[in-house]
């Protein structure tokens, strides 16, 4: 498989704070890769740096052969990268329908609204509700659904299971496998190691703003122990 996203020597800052210290990893087309690590390791910052949402960043981020480090975040999104932020980013002043239709279509091949409603029936039933009135699970579904409309081929999902009931976590897992089967590439930030182990083809372990280890999805018991030690679980 060819690499769809390549990150080399990525450094990023929040104001004076130097957060990423040379992140280096790649995500191959059609795979699900995770960034695993403890709180504050730099996983979310990596997502935001890849999306161009941090003013201070340097290094190299390549998407399908295009260097994006100097692009604005709307230009990066229009290359075909969809972002689902931590805490979902549902807009309170918009209805469910407006939230769903908000991101512009960036490529052909995205799902239509009827297809999305078939996949997430609750979103159809509550289309006129205020976005933030949905349950946590429904909000997560909406956050993912609105990106599926855009035709993005690489999805960045930042902690999609955070704060959700186990049954909803199961549904999110099934959805990610479904997206992979449709040929989409997923980069996932997770703290829930057990969830990540079930859905991912590959894991990168992040510590102090850099990748310190790479573990295959099909883990040996030794890999599991090593990951548990890294994550403190």
């Amino acid at each position, binding site marked *: 498989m060819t690499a769809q996203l390549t990150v080399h020597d990525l450094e990023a800052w929040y104001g004076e704070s130097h957060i990423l210290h040379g992140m280096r990893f790649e995500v191959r087309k059609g795979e699900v890769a995770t960034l695993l690590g403890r709180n504050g390791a730099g996983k979310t910052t990596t997502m935001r740096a890849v999306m161009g949402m941090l003013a201070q960043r340097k290094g190299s981020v390549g998407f399908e052969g295009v260097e994006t480090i100097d692009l604005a975040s709307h230009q*990066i999104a229009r290359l075909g990268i969809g972002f689902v932020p931590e805490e979902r980013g549902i807009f309170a002043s918009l209805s469910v329908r407006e939230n769903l*239709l*908000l*991101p512009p279509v960036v490529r052909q091949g995205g799902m239509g609204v009827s297809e999305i409603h078939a996949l997430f029936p609750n979103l159809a039933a509550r289309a006129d509700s205020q976005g933030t009135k949905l349950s946590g699970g429904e909000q997560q579904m909406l956050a993912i659904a609105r990106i599926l409309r855009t035709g993005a081929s690489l999805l960045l999902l930042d902690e999609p299971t955070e704060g959700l009931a186990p049954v909803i976590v199961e549904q999110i897992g099934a959805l990610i496998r479904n997206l992979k089967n449709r040929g989409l590439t997923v980069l996932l930030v997770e703290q829930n190691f057990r969830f990540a182990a079930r859905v991912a083809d590959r894991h990168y372990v992040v510590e102090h703003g850099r990748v310190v280890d790479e573990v295959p999805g099909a883990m040996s018991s030794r890999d599991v122990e090593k990951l548990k030690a890294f994550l403190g679980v």
Partner: protein
Amino acid sequence: MFELIGIPPQALFGQLLLGLINGAFYAVLSLGLALIFGLLNIINFTHGAQYMMGAFAAWLLLNLAGLGYWPALLLAPVIVGVTGVLIERFLLKRLRGLDPLYGLLLTFGLALIVEGAFRQVYGVSGLAYPVPPSLAGGVNLGFMFLPLYRGWVVLASIVACLVTWAVIERTRLGATLRAATENPALVQAFGVNVPRLVTLTYGFGVALAAFAGVLAAPIYSVHPLMGANLIIVVFAVVVIGGMGSILGSVLTGFGLGVVEGLTKVFWPEASNTVIFVIMAIVLLIKPAGLFGRAT
């Protein structure tokens, strides 16, 4: 002739109409301010000067290019709106992410420069702008005489406010604007060119001010300081309605214009201060304004 609460109806309805006209200007101007504050987080003190520029643009189009009121009503907002785009692109853009106080200071300074420059060239005595012939005269409604042009000002302002409100609340562009007001970084990460949206929003807010300026030109004389006096009241309207609230600024604008007009009938001495008294009371009871959301 019958009387209402001891007041001759001509006086009462005359002041009500005057209140509605003032309210129309308050509403259109505060709508522009609310739009700009909502997305740019900038308190646009240049708004009064941009209202004046709209009136001057109409006067210049008439006297230099021979273009009358109706073409000016379209062209002046576009011309002044373009100056707004340039101000945002080259000046306000540099202040993004800084304390809103910097934006307030910059726009206040710009207002002083613009008003000073117009005063230098055109003096302070004011320039006459004729009522368009198609709206000259008036109709006798029985209880009052309604000058056609003044009725048109109220109607045009209501339509401008309704159209702006409908675009913001009922269209995808409006949804994008509302979302960008909440979380511009995320909206940009979805592929929306938010910097361009910000620039165009500022330009549109400025164009609204210029539109009000053209409407005002035949009623008041075209004067370099015509916006300086008005803008203080308009800021009070925005504070009462709730900073950044579109609906709040429109309803409060018309409502306070009427309240001001009625105060002129019943207690003329208080008419200049009534809006500020209401502002003080609203701030004490509901600091976010009548339609604002507490943060």
